[in-house]
Every structure is written in structure tokens, then in C-alpha cells.
């Protein structure tokens, strides 16, 4: 029996790595998740055969409730809400790792002191990832509108962390840690996760979710050591390092060092965006008819969608319009900024949902030198990621952020709901350029009008 279990865990670990590898290319990605899924099923089934287990009734009940709820919510969630859903599932993993540690600590029988230390570290990381992810979920879901910032917050957090470390060491050192110290330890760890996440603004949340994803992986790996489970060690460590790299990539794309994300409150209102300058000049309007004509007779149109387009649920209509243009012989490409949407790659998912093939979608580096040859750049619901100020004005809070060079296109049409500012609160100089025309209206309405006009040509 032991051999069968070991072979199965070995197989599962291999399938996870192969699955993740396949998921990193769009051609094989769909198969990748199925491979990893097969690994998970094998590992779960074989675990029932582990010698000396009892409480099978509770086990199956917990599996049914947890799995059932997750299945139902996962099937129902809208693509626009995907980031917070990932946060909540990730938090559950962190919580599970913490629960394993709690059971082992209460049982109080460790193979060696090293394992006890690892269990405590894993418990700490898992708990922080759990409560932190729940706050991230609440924020992105709009359950918490404002970021909590108060005087002496950093000091308070430091005290919580110090207390957490003290109780952590107490538990590590004790032969049989008391229930009281275990309880306080987990309470402080959960509190720290909450306090750490509360001041972080919605715009930075993807980076934080990604960080908690990596942390959960690490916690799982540590608990894997404690239980002597190689599949958990390997899967957890792979996710830990992959998640760390992914976090760095995201932070880089947003031009926000991870330390800034964690220890300042940008994107939460005050601070950086405070001094506003008017970009000067006037915004020039265009109506749907003229815009449709301009694009229908162009050679090349680059569409730049932003989160605003997804909020307006306009992606299906935009793709329909793009297909109309293509049928007239216009080359249409979609340009996606790394942070378009709520997290890197989120916009690709939303476009894929509308049926846009992935080979028509280009990222920043691929498309940026094509803008000068484009007759029209159509910006829908994007703002900060096309603001040329990021290239030109060192005083701007978004200076240095990589942007799509939309302003270099022959003509720019910006579809926008009103005259407001972007997520960062910075005035957009693009709107005032000579080659820019503003097309005001709800994304879906405007796209509908463009389709109607283009059909009549």
C-alpha cells in the first residue's frame, strides 16, 4: 500500500509540473490544466488509503461541502470578477495549511524540532495569506469601499508582528505548547494579514493577490515537510517560486516596486496624486458616424481596450465591429497593456470570452512600434496606460510606467463615458492632443452605433 501511495504522489508531482509548463503557452494551455487536474484526483483518491486514518465520515462531508460550494461559485462567477475569486480560493489554501499546522501542534508529536519549527512558520504564512486574501476579496468585490489608514498604523502593525514572532518562538520551543499560546498565535497571525492588507488600494490588489498566492505555496511546502509528503513539498515550492516571479513581473509592469505596494497607500486616494495639473488645451469631440467612416476607410486600426470596456460589457460588440472592419480589408489588431483589466492578462481573458482569437492580441512590446503606421488607434475604456505623461513628465506620479504609445498613431479616437480622470487620478494629456478625438458615451452604446454606421457604408 505504501508503494502505491508513493507512486501516486510521485505521478501527481510530475503532472503538476508538466501541467504548469503546458499552461505557459496558449497552444497547450487548455491541456495543461487537465493534466494538473488528473494529478490532483490521483493524489486525493490515494490519500484515502493512507494507513491509520480515521474520521472518514467527517472527511467526506468536508470534501463535499468545500468542493461543492467552490464548484458552484466557480461555475457562476463572471469573468470580470475573476481576480477576487482567485483571491478567495487562494486564501482557502492558506487556511488549510494553517489548519494542518494547528492539528499537528495540538497533537504535539513531532518527528524532530526542525519539523515543529517548519510547522509554525508554515502556520504563520498560511494564516496571513488566508486573512489577507479575504480582505483582498472584500475590497475587489466592493464590500469595502475605503482603505483604512490611521495614525500610528505602521507602529501598530509592527507591534502585532512582534507579538506574533514572540508567540511563534514560544510554540516552537515548547514540548507541548499550551492551547492558549496556540490560540493567541493564530489570532495574531490572522490579525496581521488583515492589517497588512487594509491600507492597500484596489489598483495594487493584483500584486498583493499574487504575493499571497506565492506565500500559500510556501506554507503548503512547509506543511509538506512536516507531514513527509513529497507531492506537497514539490507543488508548494514550485508555486512559491513561480508565484514570486509572477508577482515581480506584475509589479514591474505597473511600475510599482513591491515594497511600495506593501508599505504605502497609493491608489487609495491621497498621497501621490495630490497635486493636479491641467494638461491645457481643449478636447475635440467626434461623433459615431465620422468615427466609423474614419476607421472603415483606414488600412490599419489598433484597438486598445481597458477595464472600462469590460465594465460596460462592450467586448462582444467591439469584436463584432472589428470583424466588420476586417471584412472591408482593414487590418485590425488589439493592443493590451500588461495591467489592463484588474490584473495582468485579465483583459486577454475578457477578450477571449468575446471570441477574439489570441493571435490578434498583442502585448506592449510587440505592438508599440506599430502605432506610427496605424491610421487609427481606438482607445476604449483605457486611461492611465495610454497617458503620454508617463514618458514625458518626471513630476507625474505615473512617470516611468511603460505605456502604449497610442499618441504616435495618425489619429486617435478615445471612447469615454465622461470627462473624468483615470484610476490614478492623473489628468490624461492624450485627450488634448491635436490628433485625438473624443467619442463620448457608454462603451456598449458607442460600439453598437459604430457597428450600425459601418454596416451602412
Amino acid at each position: 500500500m505504501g508503494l502505491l501511495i508513493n507512486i501516486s504522489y510521485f505521478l501527481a508531482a510530475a503532472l503538476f509540473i508538466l501541467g504548469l509548463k503546458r499552461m505557459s503557452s496558449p497552444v497547450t494551455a487548455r491541456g495543461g490544466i487537465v493534466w494538473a487536474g488528473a494529478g490532483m484526483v490521483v493524489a486525493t483518491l490515494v490519500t484515502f488509503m493512507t494507513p491509520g486514518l480515521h474520521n472518514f465520515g467527517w472527511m467526506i462531508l468536508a470534501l463535499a461541502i468545500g468542493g461543492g460550494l467552490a464548484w458552484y461559485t466557480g461555475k457562476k462567477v463572471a469573468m470580470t470578477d475573476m481576480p477576487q475569486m482567485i483571491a478567495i480560493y487562494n486564501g482557502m489554501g492558506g487556511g488549510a495549511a494553517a489548519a494542518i499546522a494547528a492539528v499537528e501542534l495540538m497533537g504535539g508529536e513531532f518527528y524532530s524540532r526542525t519539523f515543529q519549527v517548519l510547522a509554525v512558520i508554515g502556520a504563520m504564512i498560511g494564516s496571513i495569506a488566508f486573512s489577507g486574501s479575504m480582505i483582498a476579496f472584500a475590497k475587489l468585490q466592493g464590500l469595502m469601499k475605503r482603505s483604512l489608514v490611521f495614525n500610528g498604523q505602521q507602529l501598530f502593525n509592527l507591534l502585532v508582528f512582534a507579538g506574533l514572532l514572540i508567540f511563534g518562538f514560544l510554540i516552537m520551543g515548547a514540548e507541548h505548547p499550551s492551547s492558549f499560546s496556540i490560540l493567541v498565535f493564530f489570532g495574531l497571525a490572522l490579525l496581521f494579514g488583515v492589517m497588512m492588507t487594509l491600507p492597500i488600494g484596489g489598483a495594487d490588489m493584483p500584486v498583493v493577490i499574487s504575493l499571497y498566492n506565492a506565500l500559500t505555496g510556501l506554507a503548503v511546502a512547509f506543511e509538506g515537510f512536516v507531514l513527509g509528503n513529497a507531492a506537497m513539498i514539490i507543488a508548494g515550492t514550485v508555486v512559491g517560486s513561480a508565484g514570486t516571479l509572477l508577482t515581480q513581473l506584475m509589479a514591474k509592469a505597473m511600475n510599482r516596486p513591491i515594497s511600495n505596494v506593501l508599505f504605502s497607500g497609493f491608489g487609495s486616494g491621497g498621497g501621490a496624486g495630490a497635486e493636479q495639473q491641467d494638461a491645457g488645451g481643449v478636447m475635440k469631440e467626434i461623433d459615431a458616424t465620422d468615427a466609423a467612416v474614419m476607421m472603415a476607410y483606414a488600412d490599419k486600426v489598433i484597438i486598445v481596450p481597458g477595464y472600462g470596456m469590460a465594465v460596460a460589457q462592450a467586448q462582444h460588440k467591439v469584436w463584432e465591429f472589428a470583424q466588420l472592419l476586417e471584412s472591408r480589408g482593414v487590418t485590425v489588431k488589439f493592443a493590451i497593456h500588461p495591467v489592463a483589466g484588474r490584473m495582468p492578462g485579465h483583459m486577454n481573458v475578457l477578450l477571449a470570452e468575446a471570441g477574439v482569437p489570441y493571435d490578434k492580441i498583442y502585448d506592449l512590446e510587440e505592438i508599440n512600434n506599430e502605432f506610427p503606421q496605424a491610421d487609427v488607434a481606438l482607445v476604449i475604456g483605457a486611461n492611465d496606460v495610454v497617458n503620454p505623461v508617463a514618458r514625458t513628465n518626471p513630476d507625474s506620479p505615473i512617470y516611468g510606467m511603460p505605456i502604449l504609445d497610442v499618441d504616435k498613431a495618425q489619429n486617435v479616437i478615445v471612447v469615454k463615458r465622461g470627462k473624468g480622470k483615470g484610476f490614478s487620478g492623473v489628468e490624461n494629456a492624450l485627450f488634448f492632443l491635436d490628433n485625438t478625438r473624443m467619442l463620448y458615451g457608454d462603451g456598449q452604446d458607442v460600439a453598437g452605433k459604430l457597428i450600425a454606421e459601418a454596416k451602412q457604408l
Partner: protein
Amino acid sequence: MIEGFTALYIFMLAGFTGYEIISRVPVILHTPLMSGSNFVHGIVLVGAMVALGHAETDMEVLVGFIGVLLGAGNAVGGYVVTERMLEMFKSSKEAG
């Protein structure tokens, strides 16, 4: 039990593996991949099952129960959303 340096070696090699897998991933797959890696650490479920299976006192059973419940949520939820996202990625040829 996996001990001492063997454990360290596994840790190191798995760490590099994760780094290598991700380093060549295109931006368009970042969200599904984050979701996919989130699913992979759902393997915590098997650990939670073992912990619950060894639980003796009522308190241990309760905490173990919560652990399995959360672990199952991580694994199942992670799979469902990742699969839903990746299912939609199609090239021009496939879209017809």
C-alpha cells in the same frame, strides 16, 4: 520522513523548476497561470485529509474538518475557474 539535506535538495530543485516554468510565459496568460498555480497548491487538501485522519480530540477534528473543507475549496475552485478561462483561448484557425 524526508530529512535534512534531501529535503533541502528537493526544495531547491522545485524552486528553480517553478522559476523556469514561469520565466517564458507570455503576458496574455498571466491571469490563467496565476489561477493555475493557485490550483496546484490545492494539493494542501491531501495534507489536510491526513491531519483530519489522525485527529484525536474534538478540537483537532473540528480544525481538521475546517482544513479539509478549505483545501477542497482551493482545489476544486482553482480548477473550475482556470479551466473556464483557458477554454476560451482560441486561435484564428480554431475560431473558424
